[in-house]
């Protein structure tokens, strides 16, 4: 940077410190007024955000599966389990998204039984949507295997890494 430019920058900074910043402070503190900048979020917004998070999560899983198919980073049982885990997580995502969506379509009186949890029932008429909603609620049949396969995968990765390090240790 040339000396001329440095001098110019220093002068601008001095101007900002001496004049602009005190002026802004004066305007903010001395002349308060409603800014109307805060947006109020309603109750359904949380569910939408949660559903969008599901979509984002599913997109990431599809992306990773695609990458692993196009450009495999390795082979063996660990990678096989890892891919299975991703597939189950993806299915679980689709299932939970569907359940969230169906829950929005249900009547307020679709779940009956009062305040006690173990008295809760899905009220008739039991059309396909309600059946789908009911069966979809058993989402753990997807996420538990997904987590199990992830554990198996990590365990095999560990074994491989230990084997590699052991071999290197023997060689050294």
């Amino acid at each position, binding site marked *: 940077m040339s000396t001329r430019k440095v001098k110019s920058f220093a002068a601008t900074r001095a101007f900002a410190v001496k004049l602009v910043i005190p002026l802004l402070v004066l305007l903010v503190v001395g002349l308060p007024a409603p800014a109307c900048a805060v947006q109020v979020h309603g109750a359904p917004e949380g569910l939408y955000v949660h559903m969008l*998070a599901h979509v*984002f999560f599913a997109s990431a899983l599809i992306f990773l599966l695609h990458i692993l198919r196009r450009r495999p980073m390795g082979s063996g049982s660990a990678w096989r389990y890892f891919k299975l885990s991703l597939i189950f997580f993806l299915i679980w995502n689709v299932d939970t998204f569907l359940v969230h969506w169906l829950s929005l379509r249900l009547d307020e009186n679709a779940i009956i039984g009062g305040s006690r*949890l173990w008295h809760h029932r899905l009220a*008739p008429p039991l059309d396909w949507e309600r059946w789908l909603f009911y069966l979809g*609620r*058993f989402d753990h049949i997807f996420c538990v295997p997904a*987590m199990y396969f992830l*554990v198996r995968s990590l365990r095999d*990765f560990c074994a491989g890494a230990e084997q590699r390090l052991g071999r290197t240790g023997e060689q050294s």
Partner: protein
Amino acid sequence: MSPGLPFLPVYTGDFVGATLMIILSLQAMRYARRLTRLERQNVLWTYLFWLCAALVALAVSRSIGHILRFVMELAGCPIGWQVLAPYSGGLNSLAFMAVAVLTFYFYNVYLVNERVRQHARALAEAHESLQCLNLTLEEQVEERTLELSRSEQKFRRLYEGSKDMIFFCDVNGRITDINDSGVELLGYDRSQDIVGHHLSSFFSDEAKWARYFCSLNANGHIKDFEAEFECRDGSHRYLLITASAVRGEDTTRQGCEAIAKDLTHFKQVTDQLIQSENMASVGQLAAGVAHEINTPLGIILGYTQLLEEDFEGNNEVLEPLRIVEKQTKVCKRIVADLLRFSRHTTEGELCRISINHCLEEVLSVVEHSLNMDHIYVQRVFGEDVPEVVVDRERLRQVLVNMITNAHHAIGKEGIIGVWTRFHSHCRELEIIIGDTGCGIAPEVIGRIFDPFFTTKGVGKGTGLGLSVSFGIIQDFGGRIDVFSPPREAMLVSAGMRTVFCIFLPVEAAGALVSEEKGRG
């Protein structure tokens, strides 16, 4: 029983599933942590660690919904769940987002990491080879220097020891370096005397130089180019040149390097061989003709002599008969010469003779006729001239031929010089017969020993004298050289215009002695 589907199995499944999720996620976290500790540099393990962390958060947040809800329900505090429910959902969402962001971000980090690892590997390899080179650099330099030195010595020996001329020229054709053989061949003492000379200055024929230079420039090389070089002393050398252009890195011509083989001796031998073959073919022809003519000539001569006897006293008839007899004898002599030339007869007897004495005998015979034409003989006979072993009669014939030729060359009034001397270094005896006559034209000097070649008028010479003499001297193991004008200052100062130098080997005497002993 109430209508609808009970949620109890669902909640039970949620409770059990959520519990399993927490256990499994913690287990996964444990393995992931272990992996990161085993291989800290592995970006995949880092990703899996944070993925597991997010999944633990997910599992825990879900457990709030699926486990605490029941606990609070059973504890009689269902309101507590309503407070916690938004936090559970929010945490779930955050966990999903975290997993998604990590996954998308991981791939880019993975690619960058792969590139870094590749570069690191390349750097490590380069570092290793550099270290290796550094360790062995001195040895390698020493080895290469030794190889270079050996190569230089080899080519230096080849250059200096070659018996052929090796020379280098710059782009303009000036000689930049030449080996010792070249210096000797061109008659110089040091290479510095030649360096800087233009190569064209050594070419006897300018047209040949132009052809050589153009061909070398056009083709970049020239092979087996025959050229005649003029040496420092004015003598000529026939050379066979093979040259190639030297080009720089930018392919521009920087000069040429050439090897020249001396073919002078080879050419002389070839010329002599051609002459010998010519003479042999002419000899065969002459032998045939002479054989056929000799008998009729004998008959003509015999009958002429008989007729002369018959017409003894009748001058009117006798005079023409004598002319016929004389001309027939001339024919017989020519035929005899031809036969002698063709047969290369060595029938005569070899004996040890003194050249000086032999010359005196010949001169005593011809000197009278020379004096008639006011031609005088100048004798300069060497005192230490040894005897040679030759056929006396045939040598006399040669000497008579030479002196007669000198006589014809002078015509009237002049000097014939006769010298004899002995060259001890080559054991050769030299007879020089010179004359102050008209000399020999350069264009015919190369042909004077050819049979039937003569510059004399019709009827005066047969063109066989010198051919026969040449053959006789060759039979003696000698040679005849002719110079017109002579090169030696002594001969020039004596007024000689043409000299014939007859060289006879003295060793033949020894051969005769051993032969005689063998016979004895």
